[in-house]
């Protein structure tokens, strides 16, 4: 039998991994749940956040946590730009998003992802880079938990819970929530749908780029122009698992994925663990499309 120590260690690291996956997916969750569009280029904005953190580190000595804040601020502008170039035309004046609009955004963001990742190769070169940041470790039994990953875990949970509180307790948050349920009703309570949708998009991108910065702690030299191709599918699976629009769903989906991937590796070869983790999407879509938890 596989040693308990191994499973416990896998569980712990799986949880931490899951949390960083969760925060990386959270921006997608917000936009998907509110504006009901899926950004295929999601991975490329994560990449942008990661490179942002890298350059902030190289030129300013910023550590990833600090960079996450800067990236988050930048993300707001990026989000507004994205909304008005890609989404505004499709959403303006509509009561519900049509299938056609869904397809248009799907395809246009697909083109955007091709454009961004390959432009990044030209701009940043294909070299893999990384940030050298090791604040040390903290002992837990026989394990040495890396503080960097621990901070990221805490921040991830913080960001996600803040968004829950924000949507529930603030006026703007409520407006966003209303928009996600019924666009027309939003107008009736005096909120401008475009302002609401664009703000939600901006917030989503802000979180995405901050997530990209936080991700760099886990990938010592994994920052490269094509990294989006890995984190986008992971994000999609997480959002579906947790339920699009359910803020805490990001955590749920992320933790599920992270734990499944890491713990399964104690029993099956790694690639099969990943295959299983990805395929989890299918039964969830078949039987619980609103997410694992009702």
């Amino acid at each position, binding site marked *: 039998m596989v040693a308990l120590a191994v499973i416990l260690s896998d569980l712990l690291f799986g949880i931490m991994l899951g949390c960083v996956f969760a925060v990386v997916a959270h921006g997608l969750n917000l936009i998907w749940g509110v504006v009901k569009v*899926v950004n295929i280029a999601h991975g490329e904005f994560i990449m942008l956040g990661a490179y942002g953190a890298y350059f902030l580190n190289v030129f300013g000595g910023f550590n990833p946590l600090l960079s996450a804040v800067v990236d988050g601020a930048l993300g707001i502008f990026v989000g507004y730009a994205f909304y008005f170039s890609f989404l505004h035309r499709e959403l303006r004046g509509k009561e519900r998003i049509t299938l056609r609009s869904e397809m*248009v955004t799907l395809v246009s963001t697909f083109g955007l992802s*091709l454009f961004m*990742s390959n432009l990044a190769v030209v701009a940043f070169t294909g070299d893999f880079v990384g940030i050298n940041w090791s604040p040390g470790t903290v002992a837990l039994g026989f394990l040495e938990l890396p503080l960097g990953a621990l901070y990221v875990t805490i921040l991830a949970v913080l960001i996600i819970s803040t968004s829950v509180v924000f949507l529930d307790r603030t006026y703007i948050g409520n407006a966003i929530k209303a928009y996600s349920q019924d666009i027309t009703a939003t107008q009736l309570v005096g909120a401008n749908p475009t302002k609401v949708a664009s703000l939600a998009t901006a917030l989503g991108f802000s979180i995405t780029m901050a997530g990209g910065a936080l991700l760099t702690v886990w990938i010592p030299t994994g920052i490269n122009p094509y990294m989006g191709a890995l984190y986008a*599918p992971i994000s*999609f699976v997480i959002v579906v698992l947790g339920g699009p629009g359910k803020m805490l769903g990001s955590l749920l989906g992320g933790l599920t994925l992270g734990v499944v991937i890491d713990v399964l590796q104690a029993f099956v070869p790694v*690639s099969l663990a990943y295959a299983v983790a990805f395929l989890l999407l*299918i039964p969830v879509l078949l039987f619980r499309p609103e997410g694992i938890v009702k």
Partner: protein
Amino acid sequence: MRIAGLGVTFFGLLALMLLLLILPFAFPFSTSVILINLLFYTALAYSINFITGMTGYVSFGHVVFLGIGAYALGASADVYGLDPVLGVLLGAALGLVFALMIGLVTLRFRGVYFAISTVVIALAALNIVLELPQLGGSQGIILNLGFQPYSWYYTIWGIVLFEMLITYYINRGKLGLGIRAIKSDEDAARSVGVNVSALKLYLFGLSGLFAGAGGAVFAWTTSGVFPYETFSLNFSLQMLAMIIIGGVGTALGPILGAVVVYLPSYYFLTVAIGTQLIIIGFAVVVIALFIPEGIVGTLKRRSASLRELLE
């Protein structure tokens, strides 16, 4: 002159294929092999056209069928010494079978969910193949089937010909009406009696069959199968870009898209290195936002006379 049911497009494509038929005899190998690649990408474009072009179900993970076909030929040639042409047929058959199995599950999901599930399946397939030593595992399979430009050429030519004919037939016939109904409003189509599930499955099966055949040819011409290269999402992206640019759902769109996307790539390999995909990405964005029917579709929409000429 118009024969009932067959328009200019049909004869135009036929003429093109006849021309392509005799080209290998008139030009040196270095030309034929470029055309083989062009025909390969055309075959992929037509295959994804069946599902994404005609029904609007975006199959981001379509490369999985290419991979299945490639491994079908690779494994059968390596282990059983199977003749590559039979390997192509095997690839087509397996592509069809897997497409039907996968489609039974995933075609129930609409829009975005279908798209994501195809990605997930392609990634899972990659990871599973990595752990199968019978298929070479992560080391892949290296083949020595030789340099066979004529066999390669006529095999892929035949595949593209079939695809063109079937595309044309589907668009023109009763099936075409049902399919266009699905694309504009699936629920309405179902309510007027179109057997939506069967149609979608039929098209998805076709797309898997031809992608599998194309994938087998790919393994044959590149003398090997390697999991990361063969299941690369890049293939899906290129396939999609080709039909989006060319014109989704049409009979001309895929070949036009393949020509526009593929032929200039040699220019990009020597002059503007690395910029091809940037330009294609940009083109896809512009087309999706402003002329979503692609070149052929938009020409048809804007001009009544062209509507009859182009299909």
